[in-house]
């Protein structure tokens, strides 16, 4: 079998992976609000200075939140 079939299979499956990622992201609603995340990511710094005073429970919540976005 010619190598071209292998190459085609690889390239198409790579393309399909990205397509699946696209479908997944739409399904999760990541395109529903395209504005707020852009503002939100700038706030991560503002949280840091007084994080130490917080209870550990709250810290955890905030960390998971930031990874979600």
């Amino acid at each position, binding site marked *: 079998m*010619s190598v*071209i*079939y292998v190459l*085609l299979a690889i390239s*198409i499956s790579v*393309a399909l992976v990205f*397509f699946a990622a*696209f*479908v997944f992201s*739409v*399904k999760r*609603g990541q*395109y*529903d*609000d*395209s*504005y*707020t995340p852009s*503002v*939100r990511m*700038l*706030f991560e710094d*503002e*949280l840091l200075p*007084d994080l130490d*005073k*917080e*209870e550990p*429970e*709250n810290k955890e*919540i*905030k960390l998971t*939140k930031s990874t979600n976005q």
Partner: protein
Amino acid sequence: MTNIRCYHCGDDCNRTRVLFDEKEFCCNGCKTVYEIFTTNGLSNFYDIEERAGTAPNEIRQKYDFLGNKDIVEKLVEFNEEGVQVVNLSIPSIHCSSCIWVLENLNRLHSSITNSQVDFPKKTIRVTYKSEDFSLKALVLLLSAIGYEPYISLEEYNKKNTKVDRSLIYKLGVAGFAFGNVMLFSFPEYFEVEEFWLDQYKPVFRWLMFAFSLPVVFYAGRDYFISAYKGLRSKLLNIDVPIALGILTLFLRSTVDIIFDLGSGFFDSLTGLVFFLLLGKFFQQKTYSFLSFERDYKSYFPIAVTRLNAEGEEENVQIYKIKAGDRILIRNMEIIPVDSILIKGNAEIDYSFVTGESNAVLKESGEKLFAGGKQLSGVLEIEVVKSVSQSYLTQLWGNSVFEKDKITAFQTLTDSIGKRFTIGVLSVAILSTLFWLFYMPSMALNVFTAVLIIACPCAIALAAPFTLGNMLRIFGKHKFYLKNTNVIERLSKIDTAIFDKTGTITTTTKDAILYEGIELTKAETALLKTTLRSSNHPLSRSLYEILKSNAIMTLDEFEEHTGKGVEGKLNKHSIKAGSASYIGESMPNAASDTAVYISSDEDFKGRFVFKNKYRDGVEDLFVTLGKTMNIGILSGDNDGERKQLQDILPSKTNLLFNQKPKDKLDYVKHLQKDHNVLMVGDGLNDAGALAQSNVGVSISEDINVFSPACDAILDASNLTKLPVFLKLSRKSIQIIKLSFLLSLCYNVIGLYFAVTGQLEPVIAAILMPLSSISIVIFTTLMTNMIGKRLKP
């Protein structure tokens, strides 16, 4: 002292000033919010944006109904194992500080685990533990920091509707296939005669075929459905030639590769569908934070306080109220049902229902209509009709509200599409007939080639991109349209009807005139001091304009709800209130809002509150009057007929005392030979707004209630209305120009098709070229004419 602005909300601190932590606040509410923020480590709020806060309103028992389990159950999205998730609409979200503070709600209460803001929609999604926290507590917390959620009957009825994302999927599929097919077909464009390429040609061709399958059968499905629907109702819409084009492209290409006649047109096919969907996507701009479908439901509360047989108060969902029930209406609450007044001083503002701007005084035993707002004190009322049968809500039973304006309107694209389809089909048939006699083997080739090349991609793109871009330009100037179809309808308007109260007048009554014997300095000072203690809206506006600096302590103060106020100092007394309270009346008293003044029981005079017309209204009418008919439909009395006649062109039709139904009927009557634009603001205009060709709702604050309409216009830009109308007409001209342009491409393409020389590579160049040039042309043109809106 004029320039001191509140550290929290940025309002002027003229009336009262609160000093705290070396910062100035306009009221105690703002100070409290500042305190809450700083003590919880949220002082960053003031660093992100300056003076970004909103002054909190007083709440009291307004949200007591959230204690009712059934109601809470309906409002929350998720409620299991001690965790509740709720999505609340908060109109006062407006800046990045808001996002920041609302997403850090967990610092204000430890039971809140997560909160996420959707800025464009102005909503917040909060997850909290319901053990030691509740929806009511959350709402009160939000209200306390100035972010009062908007909870109305509409929310209560809302079904969990799924977001339709199919267009994004289709666009993704088409784009994905388009890109890949382009790559696969690239070698064929150059017709390279090479052993290696020739050997693998079938592989690439069948791959292209495979990629085009989902494009035709999934992404392009809507065009087939729409064309089929059009044909069934004997309409040749623009989707007919498009569907025909897609189908021919697909079948011819498949035949081509099966019999090894050529590489097919899969690249053009996928590209065509991709561009068409792109146009659709661009047109689909929606203002998600606005609602164009509102009816009385978003104006009414969810629950009211009912007095049960034992005289106890209980919160009841509004639909559960039956005739005969006794309910309590508190200050500033809406009366949700037709009822009879039992107890209390009713001073009811019906401006939203009737357009009548003066509050109406009612006495015990009189009938109250749903939709009125109680202005002074608590009322006890007996229900006469249930919510859905009340006078106001019955208006929504009118068939106008079920009519879909879009389906009734034939767009320019569709009317062109009809002629275009006939033209294309006749060219296809004629050229096929010619080739049948001249060289029969070419006939089918030519027939399909004509259908392929004539596929009106560019025509179908002209309208979405022109109108979509115009919609965005209008939106930047605070004129929010429901959809692009409204622009086409706006361009055909030849009659403009305006509501008066709240539309061409401001809602705050600023113009105050004094008639009567001049007040002495001592009297003015006493009057101002007396008014200071009163919370009635008229007292407050009067307080603002009286010029006196003396602040005294009164010996005696009495407020007679619904009647007036009385203040006593050093044996002098002053009374301010309604004519009957003062015991005086002046001619023409009925049609004006006035506060009568008497000093030591001697009648002095009255302050007359005039509706103030919005700035530039006169110019607006002069400009509009040049090109169209103008009319005024007011629910108000004709007290201002004279004033209006002065500022309006002489031909203007003035109608007063119009009930909501009258307005609807008048618009309907006009529509026999005119295209009517209705401009209104309240529920009383809702019928007319729905009936008119284009209903525009004027709003001082676009976040608060506006009735169902086609467009929402910010009150500050009312004077730009003629420009908006003009731009709509220009947009239609741009579309027509683009049709001409795309016709040129079609003629070139048809030359190749009719002469039987259409190669896939020509189609692959011509199709995207025409589409892209149309997109560029329309975008540039709309941006150019949109510059006229700049002040």
